[in-house]
Protein backbone atom coordinates (compact mmCIF):
# COMPACT_ATOMS: atom_id res chain seq x y z
CA UNK A 1 0.00 0.00 0.00
CA UNK A 2 1.34 3.48 -0.71
CA UNK A 3 1.18 5.43 2.50
CA UNK A 4 0.04 9.04 2.66
CA UNK A 5 2.43 11.53 4.31
CA UNK A 6 -0.24 12.24 6.88
CA UNK A 7 -0.92 8.92 8.57
CA UNK A 8 -4.22 10.24 10.01
CA UNK A 9 -5.66 9.81 6.51
CA UNK A 10 -5.57 6.02 6.94
CA UNK A 11 -8.72 4.25 8.10
CA UNK A 12 -8.44 1.80 11.00
CA UNK A 13 -8.55 -1.14 8.57
CA UNK A 14 -5.74 0.42 6.51
CA UNK A 15 -3.81 1.20 9.70
CA UNK A 16 -4.16 -2.44 10.79
CA UNK A 17 -2.69 -3.64 7.49
CA UNK A 18 0.15 -1.10 7.58
CA UNK A 19 0.98 -1.97 11.20
CA UNK A 20 0.94 -5.70 10.56
CA UNK A 21 3.17 -5.29 7.50
CA UNK A 22 5.57 -3.19 9.60
CA UNK A 23 5.18 -0.29 7.15
CA UNK A 24 4.39 1.95 10.11
CA UNK A 25 4.71 1.61 13.86
CA UNK A 26 1.98 2.34 16.39
CA UNK A 27 4.29 4.95 17.90
CA UNK A 28 4.51 6.77 14.54
CA UNK A 29 0.76 6.48 14.02
CA UNK A 30 0.00 7.72 17.54
CA UNK A 31 2.43 10.61 17.15
CA UNK A 32 0.73 11.56 13.87
CA UNK A 33 -2.58 11.84 15.75
CA UNK A 34 -1.10 13.93 18.53
CA UNK A 35 0.51 16.20 15.92
CA UNK A 36 -2.88 16.56 14.23
CA UNK A 37 -4.60 17.18 17.57
CA UNK A 38 -2.16 19.98 18.35
CA UNK A 39 -3.02 21.70 15.05
CA UNK A 40 -6.81 21.42 15.08
CA UNK A 41 -7.83 21.22 18.74
CA UNK A 42 -7.84 24.99 19.32
CA UNK A 43 -10.53 25.27 16.63
CA UNK A 44 -12.53 22.12 17.48
CA UNK A 45 -12.18 21.27 21.20
CA UNK A 46 -13.04 17.58 20.82
CA UNK A 47 -11.01 16.59 23.87
CA UNK A 48 -11.34 17.27 27.59
CA UNK A 49 -8.21 15.31 28.55
CA UNK A 50 -5.33 14.12 26.39
CA UNK A 51 -3.60 10.93 27.54
CA UNK A 52 -0.22 11.55 25.89
CA UNK A 53 1.99 9.59 28.30
CA UNK A 54 -0.42 6.68 28.56
CA UNK A 55 -0.85 6.57 24.78
CA UNK A 56 2.87 6.54 24.01
CA UNK A 57 3.41 3.74 26.53
CA UNK A 58 0.54 1.77 25.01
CA UNK A 59 1.85 2.39 21.48
CA UNK A 60 5.33 1.21 22.40
CA UNK A 61 3.91 -1.94 23.97
CA UNK A 62 1.65 -2.48 20.94
CA UNK A 63 4.66 -2.32 18.63
CA UNK A 64 6.39 -4.96 20.75
CA UNK A 65 3.31 -7.20 20.56
CA UNK A 66 2.97 -6.74 16.81
CA UNK A 67 6.64 -7.69 16.34
CA UNK A 68 5.92 -10.91 18.20
CA UNK A 69 2.83 -11.64 16.15
CA UNK A 70 0.49 -11.16 19.14
CA UNK A 71 -2.03 -9.06 17.22
CA UNK A 72 -5.70 -8.39 17.89
CA UNK A 73 -8.00 -6.23 15.76
CA UNK A 74 -7.41 -3.08 17.82
CA UNK A 75 -3.72 -3.57 18.75
CA UNK A 76 -1.87 -0.30 18.24
CA UNK A 77 -4.93 1.59 16.93
CA UNK A 78 -5.30 5.17 18.32
CA UNK A 79 -8.81 5.79 19.66
CA UNK A 80 -10.74 8.35 21.70
CA UNK A 81 -13.19 7.68 24.53
CA UNK A 82 -16.24 9.78 25.49
CA UNK A 83 -15.60 11.28 28.91
CA UNK A 84 -18.47 9.31 30.41
CA UNK A 85 -16.58 6.02 30.19
CA UNK A 86 -14.57 5.18 33.30
CA UNK A 87 -10.80 5.02 32.87
CA UNK A 88 -8.32 4.43 35.67
CA UNK A 89 -5.57 6.49 34.05
CA UNK A 90 -7.42 9.64 33.07
CA UNK A 91 -10.19 11.69 34.67
CA UNK A 92 -13.84 10.88 33.96
CA UNK A 93 -15.91 14.01 34.43
CA UNK A 94 -19.06 13.47 32.33
CA UNK A 95 -18.30 17.12 31.41
CA UNK A 96 -19.71 18.10 34.80
CA UNK A 97 -18.39 20.23 37.67
CA UNK A 98 -19.76 17.49 39.91
CA UNK A 99 -16.97 15.17 38.77
CA UNK A 100 -14.26 17.69 37.91
CA UNK A 101 -11.01 15.95 38.82
CA UNK A 102 -12.62 12.56 39.48
CA UNK A 103 -10.48 9.56 38.57
CA UNK A 104 -12.33 6.25 38.52
CA UNK A 105 -10.84 3.35 40.47
CA UNK A 106 -11.99 0.92 37.77
CA UNK A 107 -12.11 0.73 33.99
CA UNK A 108 -15.38 0.42 32.09
CA UNK A 109 -15.66 -3.08 30.61
CA UNK A 110 -15.32 -1.72 27.06
CA UNK A 111 -12.19 0.17 28.15
CA UNK A 112 -10.80 -3.01 29.74
CA UNK A 113 -11.44 -4.97 26.51
CA UNK A 114 -9.64 -2.33 24.43
CA UNK A 115 -6.77 -2.07 26.91
CA UNK A 116 -6.35 -5.83 26.81
CA UNK A 117 -6.30 -5.73 23.00
CA UNK A 118 -3.52 -3.15 23.09
CA UNK A 119 -5.46 -0.19 21.69
CA UNK A 120 -3.97 3.27 22.19
CA UNK A 121 -6.02 5.80 24.19
CA UNK A 122 -5.49 9.31 22.81
CA UNK A 123 -7.85 10.93 25.29
CA UNK A 124 -11.33 11.58 26.69
CA UNK A 125 -13.75 13.50 24.55
CA UNK A 126 -16.24 16.25 25.26
CA UNK A 127 -19.94 15.57 25.79
CA UNK A 128 -23.11 17.31 26.91
CA UNK A 129 -23.09 17.13 30.70
CA UNK A 130 -23.96 13.59 31.84
CA UNK A 131 -24.84 12.81 28.21
CA UNK A 132 -27.94 14.99 28.39
CA UNK A 133 -28.15 17.05 25.26
CA UNK A 134 -28.12 17.21 21.48
CA UNK A 135 -25.33 19.70 20.78
CA UNK A 136 -22.47 19.31 23.31
CA UNK A 137 -23.24 22.89 24.36
CA UNK A 138 -24.14 21.91 27.92
CA UNK A 139 -20.63 20.66 28.72
CA UNK A 140 -19.35 22.43 31.84
CA UNK A 141 -15.98 22.79 30.09
CA UNK A 142 -16.93 24.55 26.86
CA UNK A 143 -18.55 23.38 23.63
CA UNK A 144 -17.11 21.38 20.75
CA UNK A 145 -17.19 22.88 17.26
CA UNK A 146 -18.38 21.14 14.10
CA UNK A 147 -15.29 20.54 11.92
CA UNK A 148 -17.29 21.31 8.75
CA UNK A 149 -18.29 24.77 10.04
CA UNK A 150 -16.97 25.83 13.41
CA UNK A 151 -19.88 28.22 14.02
CA UNK A 152 -22.13 25.16 14.21
CA UNK A 153 -22.58 22.38 16.73
CA UNK A 154 -21.20 18.88 16.09
CA UNK A 155 -24.38 17.42 17.56
CA UNK A 156 -24.66 15.68 20.90
CA UNK A 157 -24.33 14.37 23.36
CA UNK A 158 -21.25 12.58 21.95
CA UNK A 159 -20.13 15.67 20.01
CA UNK A 160 -16.47 15.37 21.00
CA UNK A 161 -16.22 11.78 19.81
CA UNK A 162 -17.95 12.63 16.52
CA UNK A 163 -15.87 15.75 15.83
CA UNK A 164 -12.66 13.86 16.66
CA UNK A 165 -13.36 11.48 13.78
CA UNK A 166 -14.39 14.18 11.31
CA UNK A 167 -11.30 16.25 12.17
CA UNK A 168 -9.01 13.18 12.13
CA UNK A 169 -8.06 13.53 15.78
CA UNK A 170 -8.61 9.78 16.29
CA UNK A 171 -9.34 6.95 13.85
CA UNK A 172 -12.18 5.39 15.88
CA UNK A 173 -13.93 6.75 18.95
CA UNK A 174 -16.53 5.55 21.42
CA UNK A 175 -19.66 7.40 22.39
CA UNK A 176 -22.95 6.54 24.08
CA UNK A 177 -26.49 6.73 22.72
CA UNK A 178 -29.60 7.07 24.89
CA UNK A 179 -31.93 8.99 22.54
CA UNK A 180 -29.61 9.44 19.56
CA UNK A 181 -26.38 10.67 21.12
CA UNK A 182 -24.19 8.66 18.73
CA UNK A 183 -26.30 8.70 15.56
CA UNK A 184 -27.27 12.37 15.59
CA UNK A 185 -23.74 13.79 16.05
CA UNK A 186 -22.52 11.27 13.45
CA UNK A 187 -25.09 12.70 11.04
CA UNK A 188 -24.22 16.31 11.89
CA UNK A 189 -20.47 15.66 11.63
CA UNK A 190 -20.50 13.56 8.45
CA UNK A 191 -19.17 10.34 9.97
CA UNK A 192 -20.42 6.82 10.73
CA UNK A 193 -22.05 6.31 14.14
CA UNK A 194 -23.53 3.03 15.39
CA UNK A 195 -25.86 2.37 18.31
CA UNK A 196 -25.83 -1.40 18.93
CA UNK A 197 -28.87 -3.36 20.11
CA UNK A 198 -29.59 -2.71 23.79
CA UNK A 199 -27.74 -5.43 25.69
CA UNK A 200 -25.13 -6.04 22.96
CA UNK A 201 -22.38 -4.05 24.73
CA UNK A 202 -21.78 -3.97 28.48
CA UNK A 203 -22.74 -0.74 30.24
CA UNK A 204 -20.45 -1.41 33.20
CA UNK A 205 -18.37 1.72 33.71
CA UNK A 206 -20.60 3.89 31.52
CA UNK A 207 -21.82 6.60 33.88
CA UNK A 208 -25.52 5.86 33.59
CA UNK A 209 -28.07 8.33 32.28
CA UNK A 210 -31.11 6.13 31.45
CA UNK A 211 -30.41 2.51 32.27
CA UNK A 212 -33.04 1.00 29.97
CA UNK A 213 -31.90 3.09 26.99
CA UNK A 214 -28.11 3.69 27.21
CA UNK A 215 -25.75 1.87 24.82
CA UNK A 216 -22.08 2.39 24.00
CA UNK A 217 -21.07 2.42 20.32
CA UNK A 218 -18.40 3.49 17.83
CA UNK A 219 -17.80 6.48 15.60
CA UNK A 220 -15.59 5.92 12.54
CA UNK A 221 -14.97 7.17 9.01
CA UNK A 222 -16.14 3.91 7.45
CA UNK A 223 -18.69 1.23 8.25
CA UNK A 224 -15.93 -1.39 8.20
CA UNK A 225 -14.03 0.47 10.93
CA UNK A 226 -17.21 0.75 13.03
CA UNK A 227 -17.75 -3.00 12.59
CA UNK A 228 -14.20 -3.73 13.74
CA UNK A 229 -14.71 -1.69 16.92
CA UNK A 230 -18.12 -3.28 17.61
CA UNK A 231 -16.51 -6.70 17.49
CA UNK A 232 -13.90 -5.57 20.02
CA UNK A 233 -16.38 -4.23 22.60
CA UNK A 234 -19.49 -6.42 22.25
CA UNK A 235 -20.30 -9.38 24.44
CA UNK A 236 -21.78 -10.65 27.65
CA UNK A 237 -20.38 -9.24 30.89
CA UNK A 238 -21.01 -10.57 34.40
CA UNK A 239 -20.76 -6.99 35.66
CA UNK A 240 -23.79 -5.90 33.57
CA UNK A 241 -26.84 -8.06 34.09
CA UNK A 242 -28.55 -6.39 31.13
CA UNK A 243 -25.85 -7.61 28.73
CA UNK A 244 -27.00 -10.63 26.76
CA UNK A 245 -25.24 -13.99 26.32
CA UNK A 246 -25.85 -13.89 22.53
CA UNK A 247 -22.53 -14.78 20.80
CA UNK A 248 -20.65 -12.01 19.01
CA UNK A 249 -20.25 -12.73 15.28
CA UNK A 250 -17.37 -11.46 13.15
CA UNK A 251 -19.09 -8.35 11.86
CA UNK A 252 -16.65 -7.84 8.97
CA UNK A 253 -16.60 -11.44 7.74
CA UNK A 254 -19.30 -11.26 5.11
CA UNK A 255 -20.00 -7.85 3.70
CA UNK A 256 -22.35 -8.29 0.73
CA UNK A 257 -21.55 -6.71 -2.64
CA UNK A 258 -25.06 -5.60 -3.54
CA UNK A 259 -28.51 -5.33 -2.04
CA UNK A 260 -30.41 -7.87 -4.14
CA UNK A 261 -33.18 -9.45 -2.09
CA UNK A 262 -32.94 -6.83 0.66
CA UNK A 263 -36.25 -5.26 1.65
CA UNK A 264 -35.88 -1.71 2.93
CA UNK A 265 -38.79 -0.16 4.79
CA UNK A 266 -39.71 3.52 4.42
CA UNK A 267 -42.21 5.01 6.86
CA UNK A 268 -44.16 8.21 6.13
CA UNK A 269 -43.97 9.11 9.82
CA UNK A 270 -40.28 9.97 9.36
CA UNK A 271 -41.12 13.15 7.52
CA UNK A 272 -42.06 16.00 9.83
CA UNK A 273 -42.93 19.67 9.61
CA UNK A 274 -39.77 21.68 9.95
CA UNK A 275 -37.70 19.14 8.07
CA UNK A 276 -35.14 20.91 5.86
CA UNK A 277 -35.77 20.36 2.11
CA UNK A 278 -32.04 19.74 1.57
CA UNK A 279 -32.10 16.90 4.10
CA UNK A 280 -35.22 15.44 2.54
CA UNK A 281 -33.64 15.59 -0.93
CA UNK A 282 -30.40 13.92 0.17
CA UNK A 283 -32.25 11.11 1.93
CA UNK A 284 -34.56 10.55 -1.05
CA UNK A 285 -31.53 10.39 -3.35
CA UNK A 286 -29.94 7.83 -1.03
CA UNK A 287 -33.09 5.70 -1.13
CA UNK A 288 -32.88 5.86 -4.91
CA UNK A 289 -29.29 4.64 -4.68
CA UNK A 290 -30.35 1.75 -2.45
CA UNK A 291 -32.86 0.73 -5.12
CA UNK A 292 -30.18 0.96 -7.82
CA UNK A 293 -28.10 -1.42 -5.74
CA UNK A 294 -30.88 -3.97 -5.85
CA UNK A 295 -32.97 -3.29 -2.76
CA UNK A 296 -36.74 -3.44 -2.80
CA UNK A 297 -38.38 -0.44 -1.12
CA UNK A 298 -41.35 -1.41 1.02
CA UNK A 299 -43.84 1.07 2.41
CA UNK A 300 -44.34 0.48 6.12
CA UNK A 301 -45.99 2.40 8.89
CA UNK A 302 -44.73 3.17 12.38
CA UNK A 303 -47.89 4.87 13.65
CA UNK A 304 -46.70 5.72 17.17
CA UNK A 305 -43.57 7.58 16.01
CA UNK A 306 -45.14 10.96 16.83
CA UNK A 307 -45.39 9.94 20.52
CA UNK A 308 -41.79 8.79 20.87
CA UNK A 309 -40.35 12.18 21.85
CA UNK A 310 -42.88 12.65 24.67
CA UNK A 311 -42.39 9.06 25.84
CA UNK A 312 -38.66 9.58 25.94
CA UNK A 313 -38.88 12.86 27.82
CA UNK A 314 -40.71 11.08 30.62
CA UNK A 315 -38.76 7.82 30.64
CA UNK A 316 -35.22 9.12 30.26
CA UNK A 317 -35.45 11.93 32.85
CA UNK A 318 -37.21 9.55 35.27
CA UNK A 319 -34.38 7.05 34.99
CA UNK A 320 -31.84 9.87 35.12
CA UNK A 321 -33.31 11.23 38.35
CA UNK A 322 -32.65 7.85 39.93
CA UNK A 323 -29.21 7.41 38.37
CA UNK A 324 -27.97 10.87 39.32
CA UNK A 325 -29.05 10.52 42.94
CA UNK A 326 -25.65 8.97 43.58
CA UNK A 327 -23.94 12.33 43.04
CA UNK A 328 -24.37 13.64 46.54
CA UNK A 329 -20.85 14.63 47.51
CA UNK A 330 -20.52 11.83 50.08
CA UNK A 331 -18.28 9.12 48.65
CA UNK A 332 -16.68 10.76 45.59
CA UNK A 333 -16.96 13.81 43.38
CA UNK A 334 -17.03 17.38 44.59
CA UNK A 335 -18.67 18.40 47.84
CA UNK A 336 -19.84 21.70 49.26
CA UNK A 337 -20.17 21.46 53.02
CA UNK A 338 -23.44 22.53 54.63
CA UNK A 339 -24.93 23.15 58.04
CA UNK A 340 -26.33 19.64 58.00
CA UNK A 341 -26.56 16.73 55.59
CA UNK A 342 -29.61 18.00 53.70
CA UNK A 343 -27.96 21.39 53.30
CA UNK A 344 -24.82 19.67 52.01
CA UNK A 345 -26.86 17.76 49.42
CA UNK A 346 -28.72 20.88 48.28
CA UNK A 347 -25.56 22.97 47.94
CA UNK A 348 -23.45 20.21 46.38
CA UNK A 349 -26.05 19.26 43.79
CA UNK A 350 -27.15 22.84 43.22
CA UNK A 351 -23.62 23.87 42.32
CA UNK A 352 -22.38 20.66 40.72
CA UNK A 353 -25.07 20.20 38.08
CA UNK A 354 -25.74 22.48 35.11
CA UNK A 355 -29.15 23.77 34.02
CA UNK A 356 -30.11 21.01 31.57
CA UNK A 357 -29.17 18.27 34.03
CA UNK A 358 -31.19 19.93 36.79
CA UNK A 359 -34.10 20.34 34.41
CA UNK A 360 -34.14 16.64 33.59
CA UNK A 361 -33.73 15.56 37.20
CA UNK A 362 -36.71 17.77 38.06
CA UNK A 363 -38.81 16.41 35.21
CA UNK A 364 -37.99 12.86 36.14
CA UNK A 365 -38.57 13.35 39.85
CA UNK A 366 -41.94 14.92 39.11
CA UNK A 367 -42.97 12.08 36.76
CA UNK A 368 -42.13 9.50 39.42
CA UNK A 369 -43.57 11.35 42.38
CA UNK A 370 -46.62 10.24 44.30
CA UNK A 371 -49.78 11.22 42.50
CA UNK A 372 -48.11 11.53 39.11
CA UNK A 373 -46.39 8.14 38.68
CA UNK A 374 -49.32 6.47 36.88
CA UNK A 375 -50.25 9.43 34.71
CA UNK A 376 -46.70 10.02 33.52
CA UNK A 377 -44.23 7.19 34.06
CA UNK A 378 -46.53 4.19 33.66
CA UNK A 379 -48.29 5.88 30.74
CA UNK A 380 -44.95 6.42 29.01
CA UNK A 381 -43.97 2.79 29.59
CA UNK A 382 -47.20 1.67 27.93
CA UNK A 383 -46.67 3.89 24.91
CA UNK A 384 -43.17 2.45 24.79
CA UNK A 385 -44.75 -1.00 24.30
CA UNK A 386 -46.71 0.37 21.34
CA UNK A 387 -43.57 1.85 19.79
CA UNK A 388 -41.79 -1.48 20.13
CA UNK A 389 -44.79 -3.32 18.63
CA UNK A 390 -44.70 -0.95 15.63
CA UNK A 391 -41.13 -2.06 14.89
CA UNK A 392 -41.90 -5.75 15.46
CA UNK A 393 -44.72 -5.52 12.92
CA UNK A 394 -42.63 -3.53 10.43
CA UNK A 395 -39.78 -6.05 10.54
CA UNK A 396 -42.20 -8.73 9.33
CA UNK A 397 -42.28 -6.82 6.04
CA UNK A 398 -38.73 -5.53 5.72
CA UNK A 399 -35.15 -6.27 6.77
CA UNK A 400 -34.04 -2.75 7.66
CA UNK A 401 -35.77 0.60 7.90
CA UNK A 402 -34.29 3.73 6.31
CA UNK A 403 -34.93 7.27 7.54
CA UNK A 404 -33.18 10.61 7.95
CA UNK A 405 -31.00 10.76 11.06
CA UNK A 406 -32.22 14.24 11.95
CA UNK A 407 -34.74 16.69 10.41
CA UNK A 408 -32.04 19.32 9.86
CA UNK A 409 -28.31 19.66 9.34
CA UNK A 410 -26.10 20.89 12.21
CA UNK A 411 -27.46 24.14 13.59
CA UNK A 412 -25.63 27.26 14.72
CA UNK A 413 -24.19 27.27 18.21
CA UNK A 414 -26.54 29.10 20.57
CA UNK A 415 -29.54 28.90 18.24
CA UNK A 416 -31.52 26.36 20.27
CA UNK A 417 -30.39 26.94 23.81
CA UNK A 418 -33.28 29.18 24.85
CA UNK A 419 -36.10 26.71 24.16
CA UNK A 420 -35.32 23.20 25.44
CA UNK A 421 -38.05 21.59 23.36
CA UNK A 422 -36.53 22.96 20.14
CA UNK A 423 -33.28 21.26 21.15
CA UNK A 424 -35.12 18.01 21.91
CA UNK A 425 -36.62 17.96 18.39
CA UNK A 426 -33.16 17.23 16.94
CA UNK A 427 -33.58 13.65 18.19
CA UNK A 428 -37.10 13.00 16.95
CA UNK A 429 -35.93 10.34 14.45
CA UNK A 430 -33.34 8.69 16.65
CA UNK A 431 -35.33 8.25 19.88
CA UNK A 432 -37.66 5.44 18.70
CA UNK A 433 -34.79 2.98 18.24
CA UNK A 434 -33.72 3.43 21.87
CA UNK A 435 -37.29 2.93 23.08
CA UNK A 436 -37.48 -0.36 21.17
CA UNK A 437 -33.88 -1.42 21.87
CA UNK A 438 -33.10 -2.02 18.19
CA UNK A 439 -29.74 -1.16 16.58
CA UNK A 440 -29.30 1.91 14.41
CA UNK A 441 -26.52 3.42 12.32
CA UNK A 442 -26.04 6.85 10.77
CA UNK A 443 -23.92 7.12 7.63
CA UNK A 444 -23.18 10.15 5.44
CA UNK A 445 -25.53 10.48 2.43
CA UNK A 446 -24.69 13.88 1.02
CA UNK A 447 -24.70 17.56 1.85
CA UNK A 448 -27.17 20.38 2.25
CA UNK A 449 -25.90 23.97 2.35
CA UNK A 450 -22.39 22.63 2.74
CA UNK A 451 -23.23 20.58 5.82
CA UNK A 452 -23.36 16.77 6.05
CA UNK A 453 -26.67 14.91 5.95
CA UNK A 454 -27.00 11.64 7.84
CA UNK A 455 -28.90 8.60 6.59
CA UNK A 456 -30.19 6.35 9.35
CA UNK A 457 -30.67 2.61 9.04
CA UNK A 458 -32.52 0.70 11.75
CA UNK A 459 -32.25 -3.05 12.09
CA UNK A 460 -33.65 -6.03 13.93
CA UNK A 461 -32.40 -6.73 17.42
CA UNK A 462 -28.99 -8.43 17.40
CA UNK A 463 -28.79 -8.30 13.61
CA UNK A 464 -25.99 -5.73 13.41
CA UNK A 465 -24.49 -7.96 10.69
CA UNK A 466 -27.27 -7.13 8.22
CA UNK A 467 -27.32 -3.48 9.26
CA UNK A 468 -23.57 -3.06 8.79
CA UNK A 469 -23.59 -5.03 5.54
CA UNK A 470 -26.27 -2.88 3.96
CA UNK A 471 -24.62 0.32 5.21
CA UNK A 472 -21.26 -0.83 3.82
CA UNK A 473 -22.67 -1.53 0.34
CA UNK A 474 -24.29 1.93 0.18
CA UNK A 475 -21.14 3.61 1.55
CA UNK A 476 -18.88 2.07 -1.09
CA UNK A 477 -21.27 2.83 -3.93
CA UNK A 478 -22.04 6.40 -2.91
CA UNK A 479 -18.51 7.37 -1.87
CA UNK A 480 -19.37 10.12 0.68
CA UNK A 481 -16.81 8.68 3.13
CA UNK A 482 -14.01 10.04 0.95
CA UNK A 483 -14.92 13.62 1.80
CA UNK A 484 -13.46 15.09 4.97
CA UNK A 485 -13.62 18.69 6.15
CA UNK A 486 -10.75 21.14 5.76
CA UNK A 487 -10.51 22.24 9.35
CA UNK A 488 -9.83 25.96 9.64
CA UNK A 489 -6.93 26.22 12.03
CA UNK A 490 -6.70 29.97 12.45
Amino acid at each position, binding site marked *: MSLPNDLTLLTAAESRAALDNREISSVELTQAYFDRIQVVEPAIHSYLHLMTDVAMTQATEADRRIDQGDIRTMTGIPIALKDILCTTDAPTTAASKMLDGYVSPYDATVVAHLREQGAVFLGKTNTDEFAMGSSTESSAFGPTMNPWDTSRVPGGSSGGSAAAIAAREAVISLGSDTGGSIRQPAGFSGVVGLKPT*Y*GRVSRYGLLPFAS*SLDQIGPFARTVEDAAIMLGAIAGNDRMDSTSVPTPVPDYTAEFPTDLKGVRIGVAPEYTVDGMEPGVDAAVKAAIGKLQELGAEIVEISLPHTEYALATY*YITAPAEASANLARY*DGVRYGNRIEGED*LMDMYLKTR*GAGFGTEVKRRIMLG*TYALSSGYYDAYYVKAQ*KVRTLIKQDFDAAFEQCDVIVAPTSPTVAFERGSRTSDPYQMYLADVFTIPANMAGIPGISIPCGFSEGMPVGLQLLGKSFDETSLLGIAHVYERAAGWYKQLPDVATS
Partner: protein
Amino acid sequence: MSLSRRDVEHVASLARLGLSSEEIDQMQETLSSILGHIDVLSQVDTDAIPPTAQVVGLENVLREDIVRDSLPQDVVMKMTPGSRAGFISVSEVMAGNGDGESA
Protein backbone atom coordinates in the same frame (compact mmCIF):
# COMPACT_ATOMS: atom_id res chain seq x y z
CA MET B 1 -49.95 21.15 32.49
CA SER B 2 -48.88 24.06 34.60
CA LEU B 3 -46.74 23.78 37.70
CA SER B 4 -47.08 26.09 40.64
CA ARG B 5 -44.07 27.55 42.37
CA ARG B 6 -44.89 25.31 45.33
CA ASP B 7 -44.86 22.24 43.06
CA VAL B 8 -41.39 23.21 41.84
CA GLU B 9 -40.09 23.75 45.38
CA HIS B 10 -41.51 20.39 46.45
CA VAL B 11 -39.90 18.52 43.55
CA ALA B 12 -36.59 20.32 44.07
CA SER B 13 -36.63 19.20 47.68
CA LEU B 14 -37.38 15.59 46.69
CA ALA B 15 -34.50 15.76 44.22
CA ARG B 16 -32.17 17.36 46.77
CA LEU B 17 -31.43 20.21 44.37
CA GLY B 18 -30.65 23.60 45.89
CA LEU B 19 -32.24 26.06 43.44
CA SER B 20 -32.05 29.84 43.66
CA SER B 21 -35.27 31.84 43.51
CA GLU B 22 -34.48 32.75 39.92
CA GLU B 23 -33.84 29.12 39.03
CA ILE B 24 -37.19 28.17 40.55
CA ASP B 25 -38.95 30.76 38.39
CA GLN B 26 -37.17 29.57 35.25
CA MET B 27 -37.81 25.95 36.13
CA GLN B 28 -41.50 26.64 36.65
CA GLU B 29 -41.70 28.10 33.15
CA THR B 30 -39.68 25.51 31.24
CA LEU B 31 -41.07 22.47 33.05
CA SER B 32 -44.66 23.64 32.50
CA SER B 33 -43.85 24.14 28.83
CA ILE B 34 -42.24 20.71 28.42
CA LEU B 35 -45.08 19.00 30.29
CA GLY B 36 -47.46 20.78 27.94
CA HIS B 37 -45.77 19.08 24.97
CA ILE B 38 -45.78 15.75 26.79
CA ASP B 39 -49.54 15.89 27.34
CA VAL B 40 -49.88 14.53 23.80
CA LEU B 41 -49.52 11.06 25.38
CA SER B 42 -53.03 11.34 26.79
CA GLN B 43 -54.26 10.94 23.19
CA VAL B 44 -52.98 7.37 23.08
CA ASP B 45 -55.30 4.56 24.14
CA THR B 46 -53.23 2.38 26.42
CA ASP B 47 -55.95 0.66 28.45
CA ALA B 48 -55.11 -2.83 27.26
CA ILE B 49 -51.36 -2.26 26.89
CA PRO B 50 -48.79 -3.58 29.40
CA PRO B 51 -45.88 -1.30 30.33
CA THR B 52 -42.38 -2.04 28.97
CA ALA B 53 -39.76 -1.58 31.65
CA GLN B 54 -36.94 -3.17 29.71
CA VAL B 55 -36.47 -4.45 26.20
CA VAL B 56 -33.74 -7.02 26.67
CA GLY B 57 -36.02 -9.81 27.89
CA LEU B 58 -33.65 -11.24 30.47
CA GLU B 59 -34.90 -12.41 33.85
CA ASN B 60 -33.19 -13.39 37.07
CA VAL B 61 -29.59 -12.99 35.92
CA LEU B 62 -27.86 -14.63 38.86
CA ARG B 63 -24.39 -15.65 39.90
CA GLU B 64 -23.03 -18.11 42.44
CA ASP B 65 -23.04 -16.72 45.97
CA ILE B 66 -19.25 -16.66 46.24
CA VAL B 67 -17.34 -13.87 47.94
CA ARG B 68 -15.14 -11.89 45.55
CA ASP B 69 -12.74 -9.01 45.99
CA SER B 70 -14.41 -5.64 46.24
CA LEU B 71 -13.04 -2.10 46.15
CA PRO B 72 -10.09 -1.81 48.58
CA GLN B 73 -10.65 0.52 51.52
CA ASP B 74 -7.63 2.70 50.78
CA VAL B 75 -8.92 3.32 47.25
CA VAL B 76 -12.32 4.32 48.60
CA MET B 77 -10.82 6.65 51.20
CA LYS B 78 -8.72 8.41 48.55
CA MET B 79 -11.88 9.34 46.63
CA THR B 80 -14.06 10.71 49.37
CA PRO B 81 -14.19 14.48 49.86
CA GLY B 82 -14.48 14.11 53.62
CA SER B 83 -12.85 11.53 55.81
CA ARG B 84 -11.74 11.07 59.39
CA ALA B 85 -9.86 8.19 60.99
CA GLY B 86 -10.56 5.82 58.13
CA PHE B 87 -14.25 6.63 57.87
CA ILE B 88 -16.17 8.70 55.36
CA SER B 89 -17.50 11.67 57.27
CA VAL B 90 -20.38 14.01 56.45
CA SER B 91 -22.25 16.88 58.10
CA GLU B 92 -24.65 16.09 60.90
CA VAL B 93 -27.74 14.37 59.63
CA MET B 94 -29.85 16.82 61.58
CA ALA B 95 -28.54 20.26 62.61
CA GLY B 96 -29.03 21.78 66.02
CA ASN B 97 -27.66 18.72 67.80
CA GLY B 98 -25.42 20.51 70.29
CA ASP B 99 -23.25 17.48 71.10
CA GLY B 100 -21.95 16.62 67.68
CA GLU B 101 -19.08 18.32 65.85
CA SER B 102 -19.64 19.16 62.23
CA ALA B 103 -17.59 17.29 59.66
